[in-house]
């Protein structure tokens, strides 16, 4: 076989090859410094804004030749999972999204920005943010987030479908009854040639829509002290009941699990309760979609209850480049950047930008009712800042809501089961982070 001479040479070559392999396998993919530039990481959801963010980052890197920004692009559906896995690995990205309830939730991973915000108050134009927004940036008087955008739950509607049904567009003083009445006229069953239209959406899988009804019916998730779940209250159950009955009784929404995929964009759903401003750009880019927004219809107890949440940037508490990341945060939230985002679709967090957009005669695309957007902010409520809120809502409450939607039991039972499950959860896991 091999000559006596060739064998050792072969083994040496193999060992060298393996060593090279291990070197490559173990190479740090995120070194603190690469090619003499400080590397900062930013985890971002893939969205139509991808090009925009990449341009922004390129310009930022041009202005800061000593910094390299690595963007970790993640599909929205897996963002939560990916972020937490990274954090668990001690690899929290230097910059990530946060705001409102997320501040409480992600607190163990965020830097206290107060010293930076106070130092650079003039530069970042702290006074330019609306007071509500400034409040949402803080927790216990400390700053954690620099906001880029704000989302508020609205009533979205398809103008063409309203026209075709011979209906006037939704009014600011609508109630649930008006929603149902219009929904019935808009609903058109599917036929062999026509996929049909549902009058109203039914957002499934998270709290986006049903929490609005619960709160508008006078209910809420947690007792004021945050120690007990009260989804079994009569008011909360009334909200869940309306959520369910939109399809089971009024027939204006698809039954459980049959919400058409991207129904509003595909013009198979005429009205969308809740929604997200992030989709404005999608909507405006979709040919033939003529849409607008209105105040949310008022519930039996109150008009309040739509969600409002800021989306902003947080800084990792284990970052290796605090000042560099802070520089990127400031860059991405400067008025010009926020104006650019608002022009693509969104609500301004800065007063200067809001005023400029409201006045801007050249502004194109929907929504035309920008005034309704800002009016809805007055009736909106933030998500309770319970540190376990997100986990509880997704892990504990939503399974029961899902089962209600699938027809396993009614709203009373769902409320009862959810409350019991949450209270059990709190008894078992509470105290992970102090409320």
């Amino acid at each position: 076989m091999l000559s006596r001479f060739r064998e050792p040479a072969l083994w040496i070559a193999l060992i060298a090859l393996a060593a090279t392999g291990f070197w490559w396998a173990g190479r740090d993919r995120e070194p603190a410094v690469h090619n003499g530039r400080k590397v900062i990481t930013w985890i971002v959801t893939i969205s139509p804004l991808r090009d925009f963010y990449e341009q922004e980052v390129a310009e930022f890197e041009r202005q800061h030749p000593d910094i390299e920004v690595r963007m970790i692009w993640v599909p929205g559906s897996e963002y939560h999972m990916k972020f937490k896995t990274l954090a668990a690995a001690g690899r929290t990205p230097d910059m990530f999204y946060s705001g409102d309830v997320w501040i409480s939730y992600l607190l163990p991973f965020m830097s206290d920005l107060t010293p930076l915000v106070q130092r650079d108050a003039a530069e970042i134009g702290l006074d330019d943010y609306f007071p509500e927004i400034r409040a949402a940036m803080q927790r216990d008087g400390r700053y954690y987030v620099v906001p880029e955008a704000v989302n508020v739950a609205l009533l979205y509607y398809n103008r063409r479908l309203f026209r075709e049904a011979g209906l006037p567009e939704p009014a600011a003083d609508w109630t649930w009854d008006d929603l149902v009445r219009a929904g019935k006229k808009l609903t058109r069953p599917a036929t062999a040639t026509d996929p049909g239209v549902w009058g109203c959406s039914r957002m499934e899988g998270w709290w986006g829509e049903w929490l609005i009804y619960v709160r508008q019916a006078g209910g809420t998730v947690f007792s004021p002290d945050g120690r007990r779940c009260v989804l079994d209250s009569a008011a909360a159950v009334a909200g869940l009941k309306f959520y369910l009955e939109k399809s089971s009784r009024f027939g204006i929404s698809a039954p459980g699990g049959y919400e058409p995929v991207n129904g509003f964009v595909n013009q198979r759903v005429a009205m969308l309760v809740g929604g997200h401003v992030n989709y404005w750009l999608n909507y405006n880019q979709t040919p033939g979609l003529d849409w607008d927004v209105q105040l949310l219809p008022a519930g039996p107890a109150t008009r309040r209850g739509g969600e409002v949440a800021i989306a902003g940037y947080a800084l990792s508490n284990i970052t290796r480049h605090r000042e560099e990341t802070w520089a990127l945060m400031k860059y991405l939230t400067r008025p010009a950047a926020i104006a650019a985002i608002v022009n693509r679709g969104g609500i301004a967090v800065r007063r200067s930008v809001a005023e400029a957009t409201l006045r801007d005669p050249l502004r194109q695309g929907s929504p035309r009712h920008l005034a309704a957007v800002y009016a809805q902010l007055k009736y909106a409520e933030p998500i309770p800042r319970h540190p376990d809120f997100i986990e509880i809502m997704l892990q504990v409450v939503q399974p029961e809501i899902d089962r209600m939607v699938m027809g396993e039991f009614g709203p009373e039972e769902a409320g009862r089961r959810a409350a019991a499950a949450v209270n059990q959860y709190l008894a078992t896991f509470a105290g992970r982070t102090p409320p």
Partner: protein
Amino acid sequence: MKSRRAEQLWFWLFTGPALAGFVLFSLWPMLRSLWLSFCQYDVVSAPHFTGLRNYAYLIFSDPAFWPSIKVTLVFAAVQLPLSLAAALGVALLLNQPVRGRGFWRSVYFLPSILPQAASVAVFVYIFQSDGGLLNRVLALAGFTGPAWLGSPAWALPVVIMISLWGFGYPMVIFLGGLQNIPRELYEAAHIDGAGAWARFRHVTLPLLSPVLFFNVVMGVIGALKVFDVAYAFGAAQGLTPGGPARATLFYGLNLYQQAFTYFHMGLASAMAWLLFAVIMLITWLNFRLSRRWVHYGD
């Protein structure tokens, strides 16, 4: 070999890496996760001992635990008989003296070794309600196919149908079992005037039952560990894996999310150990019942 000592030395040298790996990658993590299963551990702070609380919470309170077991068991109860029937059917065909048996066997085996991320992607495309291959074929036959995707009612059946594609492993095991059945038995039965069905019923099936049993056991264990299909099924549709409406939240996926999305590392360890306990139980049963029929070729 020069001496016993030298043999000892070579033994430890040769098995050293594997034994070290056993300790590092199996034994230590196994014991560590057993310990974690009695702890509250959220990565951010150090684990602290909470006794049986994780187990109690899982069994009595966790709203996702039993539903995920239900998904897993429904999957096992539907997918397993169907795939075993297909595997046995093809194995019976392949057991006939047909030309190119090796070729056919490979064709039927191939799908079970393809990367599941790819095969799920292919099937997600095939199951599209609009223009998907399946609904088009159904339309040719005069049926209107449902909207397979995005519906919690259809999600699990679709995952089951996707998994049915890969019945290669039980098939080759059946085939091995069939080939071990002495031909004389068939000939004797034939002479006794037994028809094809009677021969199958009274010769093949009894002699195949140990293999069948083995396949059932492996199938149940496989179902308990399902992850890739479930994850890919969600991800290929832009859904949070497990969706829609948790219809495909398999036990393995639920465990993964508890650990890496919700940081309930202690709770997830408890889930892992419950899974392990069930697998050990099944394997033990298998061993006890199989002593009669498995002989190791020494």
